[in-house]
């Protein structure tokens, strides 16, 4: 296992990938983590899952609790330090580690380790060079693009290419795809009316596509928009990108 390694190195067959499965995915959406495992097994990628991992600290940082965020970032840095490749099925937690750690603690260990974190779509498309992961999903889907994935990590194009390459899929572009769904963690409860106003627009745009599934690389946005859809008794179901890519 390589100790050094930077984000710009090329992936060599046999390199181990460390899975970073965010805390809320671990507990609320474990099927997302399992789907990631099955995709990588299909592609023959060696996996490791550092069992000590918990939370990257994003809820603390977003709430302004810098001290707690620093502690959790440092812990993340220690746990993942030995890995060259770290993959996370969440644009939001990916942005925290890859982009916000360097603002939080410039030059710190966590910031350095954070540069080696990749969201799932970017890793598959840009690092492995794989667009067709051998999935089949005979349904209509539209994509909810998480803002952190889109703007902090730039993974929208990769996610779209992956979805469009899935066998028998009917991909429909979401109108106003670039607009935020209104989740924002703490924001969703602190500014509840604004959050659900934004969520309503997203629900309406997604429903207008007539798709069966709303797919995203971010379970956190799906938790909010999916929660709204369920509350309204909508037929539109939500799925994580990994779950679609794992289907055959």
């Amino acid at each position, binding site marked *: 296992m390589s100790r050094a390694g930077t984000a710009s190195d090329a992936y060599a067959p046999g390199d181990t990938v460390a899975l970073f499965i965010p805390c809320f995915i671990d507990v609320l959406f*474990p099927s997302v983590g399992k789907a990631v495992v099955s995709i990588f097994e299909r592609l023959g990628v060696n996996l490791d899952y550092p069992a000590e991992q918990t939370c990257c600290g994003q809820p603390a940082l977003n709430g302004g609790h810098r001290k707690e965020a620093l502690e959790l970032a440092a812990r993340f840095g220690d746990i993942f330090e030995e890995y060259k490749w770290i993959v996370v099925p969440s644009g939001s937690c990916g942005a925290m580690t890859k982009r916000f750690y360097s603002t939080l603690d410039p030059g710190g260990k966590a910031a350095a380790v954070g540069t080696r974190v990749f969201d799932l779509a970017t890793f598959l498309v840009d690092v492995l060079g794989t667009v067709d992961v051998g999935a089949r999903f005979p349904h209509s889907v539209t994509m909810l693009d998480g803002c952190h994935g889109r*703007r902090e990590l730039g993974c929208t194009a990769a996610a779209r290419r992956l979805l469009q390459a899935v066998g028998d899929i009917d991909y429909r572009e979401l109108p106003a795809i670039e607009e935020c769904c*209104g989740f924002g963690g703490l924001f969703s409860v602190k500014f509840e009316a*604004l959050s659900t106003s934004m969520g*309503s627009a997203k629900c309406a745009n997604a429903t207008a596509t007539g798709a069966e599934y709303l797919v995203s690389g971010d379970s956190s946005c799906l938790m909010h928009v999916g*929660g709204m859809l369920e509350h309204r008794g909508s037929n539109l179901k939500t799925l994580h990108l990994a779950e679609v890519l794992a289907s055959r």
Partner: protein
Amino acid sequence: MTIHFDRRQVHDDLHSPSAPPILDSSMRRAVEHKHAAQTLIAWDELRERAHEIKAYSIEHLDELLVRFEREFIARGGRVLWTQTADEAASRFLDICRAHGARSVVKGKSMVSEELELNARLTAAGIDPVETDLGEYIVQLAGERPSHIIAPAIHMSRQDVGSLFERKLKVDYTDDPEALSEIARLRLRQRYLDAGVGMTGANFGIAETGTVVVVENEGNGGLSAQAPPVQIVVMGIEKVIPTLDDLIVFLQLLARSGTGQKMSTYVHHFLGPVDGRAMYCIFVDAGRTDLLADPVARESLYCIRCGACLNVCPIYRRVGGGAYGWVYPGPIGSVITPSMVGVEDAGELPFASTLCGACAAECPVKIDLPHLLVHERSRSVDEGAASSPLENAAVSSWARAMSSSRGYSFAVLAARVGGAVSSMLPWISPAARAWSKERSMPKVASMTFKDWWRER
């Protein structure tokens, strides 16, 4: 003064995207124009260049301001340095009194809003008149500008028609041209009567001591030059090194602000002419506090184009009035804490999802979401935004997340008590706020961690 972010202004009709309020549709139009205009030039390179020039200018602010002052004085102008908004307003009044001015015509200026100049002038028996059409409307209505470049964006033309009918005693019309004509006729004599004309400054050019004012209506030029005395009120962050640098910003500013390729007027004021007097009041008012903070400093690069407001999903829903002070939108939430005090800025930095739409549009590439996160930390550090209860909840959650045992315990609590909040700390104080329009996420029967271990 504590600023309350007024979330009540979220209109109910926003729940129906088919009927967007005025603000939302105006903003969408502005963004479309901007995107169309920016395809005509090397947008990304220009932004990069603008960011570099501003970075240099802010790092060398002391030298550049002194250079500007020297050149400006050499051209016959006078410079006044002020530390607070209050002091700047007082110096402004002193100049008006010294010249016996009874009225002041004002070009559009956000800094003058910081100074509460209209109120200060009125209290001193001097009559201020806003000459930018939007500002004129807002002044008549007794309101504050709700957008930094489109002050009356929150009003429909029908609103303006009724306002004019009521305040100016004219027949009702909602025809924009007719409304502009009414304002134009009213303002004409005011320019001639005014003892002092005031403008802001979009840029101060250090090498030449030039004050650059960008505008579209011609009112800025008239305000500056029709009266015998011109006073420029300028935030100290406005100075850039050279005229070559200016060209970079002019291309970006017009496109970002209004979607124009170039503004209608770009005035270069080079000191007083024809026996007139010209003053420049430098305003600090919190800017050196921003300068002293290595992270927040980047907010001084702002050229006040308004693009970050136009794309902001929060601004589009609540409008500028909800932000409670002079500068709304993402940039407002970043600079207000340093200008009015972290405590008084209240929860402004929290009124964002950190979606980053603002940063993607900003012509000088200010990393607004990262600056908002920084302001949130300052706010919590100073005890301004979080309750002791929240602090305790976050620190015990963080302690749980700091060890495998603590984590297992939090998972257990979530499973047994159904209390998702042990995992997602922000849900806890406000589970009702979450559940009002959304179903609660459910704890799975087996975590990924356990599945991995057992597989």
